[in-house]
């Protein structure tokens, strides 16, 4: 990889060939705002808030898509750049319902950050949301397209990252929007509800339904853990408020193995955690009914019954099946127990859901 030296905002910086201006700037702590850029997908150059001035270029260039070249001279904060950034932000602010009061994205919204950074209190244009209304038919995702800024992150996430190919752009001009083909709802489309689109949405257009009104971004504690649904080991963050998991998120920055992607269960299947019917004590069936017992009684009873069966029918009459939702250590101990104590190789594991 060739090293390239360039000048950004008067600083000599270095990057590798193939890197974009935005990437090099970020590595050097030079702030360039973005909306449509997402590291998991190919650059789109759509939102134009990352535009910078490159000496010799006819017009402004999108730093997220422009490869660096030797001796390139870049200005990320010139008047021309700020004017373009301001106008784009003003246009977006006036294009939809960007009322932050009850927006789930409040506090983690890139448009909000941009407006704050540029000090835009009120756009110069009349605010005119398109009036699509909220789609909340399914139990997982709320689509509020009046808050959509048509950055296309969800489209790229769906097509390039998850390759589900459900979302795309539709209509032209001011009617341009994103969604499943023929304007159907997520529910009526081929969508598998992986929630990738929700995770990349930079504003409050796509949000988790279960977590709605349950906790602001700054109120929740993010507890990093490994998803317990299968053996992939996806890295997740439990969003905890008042000792309750209100939402599960992930982040590209959490890295391997999932880079922020999750499946429908990992992302949305967390309602069991605080479910009233969840088992919290061992039960033993007596006379056709379950009775709550102590751990001592339950373990003794299980040991007694296993011993009886082994002694009567031999070790191979017993098989052990473990779960992917247990940790490796648990599973290791259980296979050791099966082979060494029970004396059989009848052990398996559901390394899938």
């Amino acid at each position, binding site marked *: 990889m060739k090293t390239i030296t360039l000048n950004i905002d008067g600083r000599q910086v270095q990057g590798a060939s193939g890197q974009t201006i935005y990437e090099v700037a970020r590595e050097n702590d030079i702030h360039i705002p973005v909306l449509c850029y997402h590291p998991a997908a190919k*650059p*789109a*150059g*759509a*939102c*134009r*808030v990352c*535009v910078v001035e490159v000496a010799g270029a006819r*017009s*402004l*260039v*999108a730093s997220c*898509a*422009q*490869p660096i070249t030797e001796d390139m001279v870049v200005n990320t904060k010139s008047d*021309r750049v700020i*004017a*373009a950034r301001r*106008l*784009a932000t003003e*246009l*977006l602010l*006036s*294009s939809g319902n960007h009322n932050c009061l009850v927006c789930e994205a409040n506090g983690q919204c890139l448009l909000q950050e941009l407006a704050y950074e540029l000090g835009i209190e009120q756009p*110069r*244009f009349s605010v005119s949301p398109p009036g699509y209304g909220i789609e909340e038919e399914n139990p997982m995702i709320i689509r509020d397209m009046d808050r959509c*800024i*048509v950055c*296309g992150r969800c489209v790229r996430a769906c097509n390039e990252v998850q390759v589900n190919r459900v979302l*795309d*752009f539709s*209509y*032209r*001009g*001011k*009617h*341009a*929007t994103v969604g499943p083909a023929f304007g159907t709802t997520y529910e009526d489309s081929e969508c598998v509800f992986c929630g990738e689109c929700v995770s990349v949405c930079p504003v409050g257009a796509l949000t988790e339904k279960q977590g709605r009104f349950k906790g602001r971004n700054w109120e929740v504690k993010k507890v990093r853990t490994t998803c317990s649904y299968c053996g992939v080991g996806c890295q997740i963050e439990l969003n905890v408020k008042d000792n309750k998991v209100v939402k599960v998120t992930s982040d590209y920055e959490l890295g391997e193995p999932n880079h922020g992607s999750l499946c429908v269960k990992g992302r949305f299947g967390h309602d069991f955690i605080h479910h009233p019917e969840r088992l919290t004590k061992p039960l033993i069936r007596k006379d056709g009914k379950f009775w709550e017992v102590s751990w001592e009684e339950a373990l003794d009873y299980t040991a007694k019954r296993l011993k009886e069966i082994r002694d009567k029918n031999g070790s191979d009459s017993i098989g052990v099946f473990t779960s992917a939702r247990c940790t490796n250590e648990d599973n290791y101990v259980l296979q050791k127990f099966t082979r060494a104590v029970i004396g059989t190789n009848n052990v398996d594991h559901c390394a899938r859901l």
Partner: protein
Amino acid sequence: MKVYRSHLMICGGTGCHASGSIAVKEALEKELEKQNLTEEIKIVETGCNGFCAMGPIMVVQPDGVMYVLIKPEDVEELVTEHLVKGRVLKRLIYKEPITKEEIPTMQEIPFFANQELRVLRNRGLIDPEKIDEYIARDGYLGMGKALTDMTPEEIVSEVKKSGLRGRGGAGFPTGTKWDFASRSQSDVKYVLCNADEGDPGAFMDRSVLEADPHAVIEGMVIAARAIGSHHGYIYCRAEYPLAISRMNIAIDQAREYGLLGKDILGTGFDFDLEIYQGAGAFVCGEETALMRSIEGHRGMPRPRPPFPASQGLWEKPTILNNVETFANIGQIILRGGDWYASIGTEGSKGTKVFALTGDVNNIGLVEVPMGTSIGTIIYDIGGGIQDGKKYKAAQLGGPSGGCIPAQHLNTPTDYEAIAKVGAIMGSGGLIVMDEESCMVDVARFFMDFCQDESCGKCVPCREGTKRMLEILTNITEGKGKDGDIELLEEMAANIKDASLCGLGQTAPNPVLSTIRYFRDEYEAHIYDKKCPSAVCSALFASPCQHMCPIEMDVPKYIALIKADRLDDAYKILLKTNPFPSVCGRVCNQACTSRCRRGQTDEPIAIAALKRYITDNGRRLVIKKVPHDRKEKIAVIGAGPAGLTAALDLTKRGYAVTVYEELPEAGGMLRYGIPAYRLPRETLKEEIDHIIAHGIDLKLNTRIGKDISFEQLKKDYDIVFMAVGAHKSYSLGVEGEDLKGVYGGVEFLRDVNLGKKVDIGKKVAVIGGGNSAVDAARTAVRLGASDVTIYYRRLREDMPAQEEEIDAALAEGVKLELFTAPGKLTGKSGRVEKMEVIRMKAGDFDSSGRKRPVPQEGGNFSVDMDTVIYAIGQQPDISFLPKDRGDIEVARGDTFKTTGRFKTRMKAEGFFAGGDALSGAAFVVTAIDAGHKAAGEIDDYIRTKNNEPAWQAPEMEKIDIPTDIDEDVIETPRFAKEHLKITDFVGNFEEVDKGLSKKNAKLEANRCLRCDLSDID
């Protein structure tokens, strides 16, 4: 091959198909059969002939006679006359729209004669569905040469040498593009042809595909050889079914002949191509979007780099060229790059095809050498503007382009020169607009197109064009506000700078260029809520009222004539106009220029109807208005501007004194316009009526002489200067100071003052305006026997009213066009001879008319007793003191106003209006200035005093009938009565006697009452 004595080349382009050429062709087939001529005469359906508006078109070869606008029912006569009897059928040949000359052969028709055909060289000559006919015209020879005699490098270098630049619009050098792609390493490369022609009004590519499809194939094979490609696509919009069908036939034939596909011409080179039909998205003309579309995705652009030459279609090296670019290639290879570069300009070589449309006489497809001026295309080839109207602008480059106004008609067709004036060459759509186009509405139209066609990917284009359209729409609906123009400019600059692709980067161009050249129209919409062309219908009820500077309520008074309520009609006139009798006679009648009735037959004779009311309506009894305000106002000049302002101010309670240097009031109405057009007693009655309101009129009083300027300033709170333009522009030739040489205004003033003016028998009048015609007709009445008007341009360029010119000619005045005065010589101080310089049309001047330039050797001299020059007039401001203080004067001695005020000057308490401000204009504009001055003076005083704004008193309510003649029968205007004159000498009686009662009512009945369009 069978030999025929005649070929009938009938145009089979989409344009002619649409106008009925298929039916004509069928009729011809039947008729030839019937008359047993099928063995002698052959019918050939060709591609687009180019003269689309004249379709269906047929050219009879070998005679070259062209028949236009043929209908199936003409065919029998046509065959009998031309093909049997050998006579040209005159009624179906082309008639030059201005001269009405009948021109039988194609080569002589200016539309064709001034073109240079390279891309269109086969148009109308071959059947596009027969490859043999293309080959017979040297087709595929260039390809043969490229494949057998040339290396890919040599092909690229030949194209580079030709200087050919991309004809799709951006003008990137074709050879350079090919060079990049040829250097890209890849086993697979693509050659793409962009036939996604989407600009409104553009049809160059369609015509080439329809008329000469093999030329495109040939160019693509050569390109493929140059870059090492084996597969290509023609991306053609699905709305071009005929082009696609002909192209497919051509592809099949080329394959069959071994000119396409495997082992072309046995050289071992493979190249095949297919058509990909686009679904009609404008953005798919953008190269990366086009490629996405071929890949099967939604056509949306992506950022570059990577450029298509390295990563294009399916991420393989790709070149994309426009139809016209490819159509040039075969010829370039065959004849060499030097041949191609032999015409054109330094930076733009070869020819360019334009689709000429809009308000031009000759609509069609034209090909001219690069460097030809836009004016030449519009006037010499296009035959000028329809119906003798004035040129306003031409939109070049479609919605991505800009407009070219009259002052830039000399701009050559050269990529850089066009960019300099704010347009782009684009693909060649040239939409001509006449004076009736509203440029704000034009900008709105193109912005609407762009925002509709924006793919929606990037924010500046998707949201920015939407907001710009919103602002433009508001302006056209009268909801524009201060700052809108500046906001549009800011947004335009920004959107151009920050958009992702060419669509967004060019979408603001029409707005920027219309603001650049027609800012006044934007301002009129925003600040005056007026659409100067009466297009933006949200701003007005009827166009006649809107066009009138003082918004006279035309439909209402016409309706009252129909109802025989002339007294009420007269009251309506007086509401806005204190000089209705004058305006009924000598108005320039902007109202009729947009009269909707004119679209059916002839505009309503509005002025004549107005005069009919003033001739017959009962006069009001005038009472003096009490002076209840303390401020004193002086008006300098008792012309229409001064008297109107004085009247308005008097009605608002001010004490007004009007100072007039001459012995009678009226200004130019009294001392400029001759009595045979405006009888003195009529004028006097109207002025007396105004004065009777309580105006103090001081005649024979010149400021600076009879009363000092300083005194005036001291005595009055406000001074309104409406001194008119009573001084002729000087002629600037030798001998001007001889006796017998008069300025037009001075001559008319002397005559109207009753002075004895000895003019002799031979009189020359120089100029083409109303003053010149007035001077000529006055000279006739003073006894001159030989009066000639010398004018340096064409008659249609004369600013004088058509009616006046006709009247002058009828009275024996002669007209010498294309002449200018030279030296004047005389004996003992009196003029005797005038040299006349013969002029001819040169290039275009800033008004868009052809500049008259002296013609070599055409000069002559004439004997003259009197020479009157009426080439324009200016204010006489010698009454002002030497130290003018804050009183600002512009070039031509006209006054200057301050800020957005129409009459208020920088000097505190001073206002100006009428001709003294605008330069010589019209009566009605002076009346308008008077009204505006009164309004601004009153506002000025009240604002200063912290008083609330003036409230107009309640007007008497007059019911207006709403009955409309539902069955419009086409009828021209009903005639006025005219004085029969046998002896002009000394006869200053009014010539025009107005409408009879019967004709007035009939004429009034012609009014369509478009002011009622909102009523059920």
